[in-house]
């Protein structure tokens, strides 16, 4: 059975179509979820795509956080549902407090758009299970505010638990932990490119897996992440865990 995965469309999202297509290539039945709707259409997982939701006004991701669909996504996440935030989607998750940390303006002050090398951490998460051991990933980043920040204790906890699930790395796999390392595109603390919640069910990353989902784009490495998500969502749906998000959840206050 093909598993249904939702892609949220905010005003200003611009990677939603690519993400729908990437999920289809990864074996899912992708459906778009409009930001004004609190109904998640019985999806088994939710992806927040890249772009500039609500124009990135005030702070990237903050206005999206208060949208009807995000109340539903927060409730879905609280029930153990799988949620992946890509780029602006990661910023939305961080603003909503669904993943730890914040994304600051790039240390260089420049919008950075280029391919990066990523070193995956634990390969037993719902977002990394399809990645072969020892494999580095190549995919693009494209953002102005991707400098990962969290306080020291949070960083330690993320690293020791493997919830810092992707790191920027040199092509030989050396993690670019120094914010000024040339392989670290935005000055992220400890070279963190992706962070996950404590339950390991909500994850964000700044790079774009959907822009590396077909050979003609130069890399298919992003498919490994999308396939991990789709497979994990299918396994959970088959096990009836969590129940598909068919019902509207009662009022849930974010953060």
């Amino acid at each position, binding site marked *: 059975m093909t598993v249904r995965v939702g892609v949220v469309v905010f005003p200003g999202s611009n990677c939603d179509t690519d993400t729908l297509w990437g999920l289809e290539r990864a074996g899912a039945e992708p459906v778009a979820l409009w930001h004004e709707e609190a109904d998640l259409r019985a999806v088994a997982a939710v992806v927040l795509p890249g772009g500039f939701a609500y124009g990135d006004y005030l*702070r990237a991701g*903050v206005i999206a956080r208060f949208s009807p669909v995000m109340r539903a996504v927060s409730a879905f996440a609280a029930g153990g549902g799988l949620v992946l935030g890509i780029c602006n989607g990661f910023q939305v998750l961080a603003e909503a407090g669904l993943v730890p*940390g*914040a994304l600051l*303006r*790039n240390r260089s*002050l420049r919008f950075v758009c280029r391919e990066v090398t990523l070193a995956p951490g634990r390969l037993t998460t719902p977002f990394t299970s399809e990645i072969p051991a020892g494999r580095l990933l190549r995919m693009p980043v494209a953002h102005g505010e991707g400098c990962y*920040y*969290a*306080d020291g204790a949070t960083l330690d906890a993320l690293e020791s638990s493997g919830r810092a699930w992707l790191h920027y790395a040199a092509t030989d796999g050396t993690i670019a932990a120094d914010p000024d390392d040339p392989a670290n595109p935005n000055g992220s603390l400890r070279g963190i490119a992706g962070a996950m919640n404590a339950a390991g069910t909500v994850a964000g990353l700044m790079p774009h897996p959907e822009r590396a989902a077909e050979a003609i784009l130069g890399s298919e490495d992003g498919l490994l992440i999308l396939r991990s998500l789709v497979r994990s969502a299918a396994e959970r749906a088959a096990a009836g865990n969590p129940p598909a998000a068919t019902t509207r959840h009662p009022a849930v206050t974010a953060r």
Partner: protein
Amino acid sequence: MSTAGPAAASFRFAVNVTPKEGILDPQGRAVEQSLSHLRVTGVAGVRVGRRVELTVEAPDEPAARAIVERLAAELLSNPLIEQYGIELLGGASSVATGP
């Protein structure tokens, strides 16, 4: 009965949001580095934030301030990386004044 509440007044506030101490502020750093182009020396600690001004209708100033406090904490700033200060601009004025 619905019109019998206390007369509302409007209060104009400013919320000043700045990066917390210790948080990298690349904008502030860039501004600071540009000062040498103006041949200005002896200026340090430049931090760039944002200022949001808003008018609140409420029965009194503490009630209005409580609303601004909530907006500042939940929406206008991210407590992880930013701090804020609230300023009352001018005095209260009646809401219902016509042109």
